[in-house]
């Protein structure tokens, strides 16, 4: 079990980009935490800096000010320790590699896995995401949903303590998205990995997250961190219950106040 109580802890994070024309503040004074083993969704309209925030946690962007602690370490150390998995908006699979070879990529770069790692078998991970029959398929032979599953399997290789997901299901049709949402909850429960998940869908945010961090745009600020009062075992039918509808309405009201 992790010795630290937070998977992610951001304090007063501000990110400014300087372009040739002007300086843009993407995030301003953002503070939040993800408990170890938790599932936090980042919800906000486009332009609120959700993806930027995810990249700050992944050490892909250095914040202008503020502190970021990931798994009790600096973001950079956490990245170098290979304790992060990242799932991108487009699956970012390498088209010249089969599904299995794509999942195995982390074994071949950056010094491979640490000997203590969990989930070292690409084959088992493809089975976990339900793609055992597609090991030898190339990305162009897979559907959008399958490609994202491969990307999730790749991100899980080595058993990362924290999974960062940047609107991974945003480009999928609703039915595929629903199914993958359900599966992601299952994977989260089975692996015990902490997840930070970016979305602009109120339903996705409420259904997936144990907690939802609502962000406002221009510049990105925290509106509120809400704890989702839903059972741990969640089925898609849950979304039709009055309680879920109430939570979704509440989140939407928060977003409505910041966007109008």
């Amino acid at each position, binding site marked *: 079990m992790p010795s630290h109580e937070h998977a992610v802890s951001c304090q007063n994070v501000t990110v400014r980009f300087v372009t040739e024309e002007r300086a843009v503040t993407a995030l301003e004074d953002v503070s939040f935490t993800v408990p170890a083993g938790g599932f936090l969704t980042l919800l906000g309209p486009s332009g609120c800096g959700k993806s930027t925030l995810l990249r700050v946690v992944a050490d*892909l962007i250095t914040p202008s000010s503020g502190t970021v602690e990931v798994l009790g370490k600096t973001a950079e150390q956490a990245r*170098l320790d290979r304790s992060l*998995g990242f799932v991108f908006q487009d699956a970012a699979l390498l088209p*010249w590699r089969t599904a299995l070879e794509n999942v195995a990529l982390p074994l071949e770069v*950056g010094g491979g896995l640490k000997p203590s790692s969990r989930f070292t078998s690409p084959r088992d991970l493809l089975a976990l995401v339900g793609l055992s029959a597609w090991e030898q398929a*190339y990305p*162009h032979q897979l559907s959008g949903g399958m490609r994202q599953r491969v990307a999730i399997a790749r991100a899980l290789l080595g058993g990362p303590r924290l999974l960062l997901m940047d609107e991974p299901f945003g480009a999928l049709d609703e039915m595929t998205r629903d199914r993958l949402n359900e599966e992601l909850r299952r994977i989260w429960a089975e692996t015990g990995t902490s997840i930070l998940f970016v979305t602009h869908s109120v339903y996705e945010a409420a259904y997936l997250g144990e907690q939802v961090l609502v962000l406002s745009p221009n510049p990105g600020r925290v509106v509120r961190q809400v704890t989702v009062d839903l059972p741990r075992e969640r089925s898609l039918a849950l979304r039709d219950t009055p309680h879920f509808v109430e939570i979704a309405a509440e989140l939407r009201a928060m977003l409505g106040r910041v966007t109008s």
Partner: protein
Amino acid sequence: MSQSHHALGPVPANPASNTLSADEVAFARARQKARLRRRIMPVLGVASVLLLWAALVYWLKVPPFIAPSPQMVAVTLWEKSGLLWTNLLPTMIESIAGFLLGNLAAVVIATVFVHKKTLEEAFFPVVVVINTIPVVAKAPILVLLLGNGMEPKIAIAALICFFPTLVNMVRGLESVNPQAMELMRVLSASKREVFFKLRLPHSLPYLFSALKIAASTAVIGAIVGEWIGSTLGIGALIIQATYAFDSALLYATVIVGSCFSMSFFLLISLIERLVLRQTSLAHS
């Protein structure tokens, strides 16, 4: 092909069954016919042009020192095959050597440019300027610098290959998916790993489209090089035949040169198909 497909309705669903339905037979027959047609049409096209050429030379009584008849060219190809072969060999060596040299240099320099942006900023304009000098103008300069042997021809062939490959290769190495680059960073991949696992395989389709251009231009480069003070080679033979008003030999030489250029192009296309099929990039 897709048209005949639609016209015939659904594709037979069970090819394993022994008895073919009428639909299946009709489909197979139509496909065979379409395939035959695709092969025959170009042959007919070439034949009709040859016929027109022969007819024009015959009716207009074109003297042989102006233009030969196709039969004369065919006879020359046969009778002077020894002479043509002796002259093709140096051109082949020059263009293949130039092709290898020019493309290798382009790939190496593209790799350097991608890793050292400053060098790209400083030297890419230089390359562009050199590329704007026409080959016919570059050739004499190189002949003066490198003498009268094969070296200046190889250099010209190499130079002519170099630019398209450099441009395509830089683009191929740089245009990788930015999210894949971020993934490599999350995985703490080294620059070398990013290059070999991501950039290089991504650049292969770009490289091959440049190599196909280079295959034909390398031959042009070698021939142009031979125009200037050379006694052997397709280029030299073209000049000699022109000055001797030997139009049949001139045409035969041109045909031999273009046959070689075409085979070189086909060889590269074949290698491309083998390499890219293996990496399944052809479809993506």
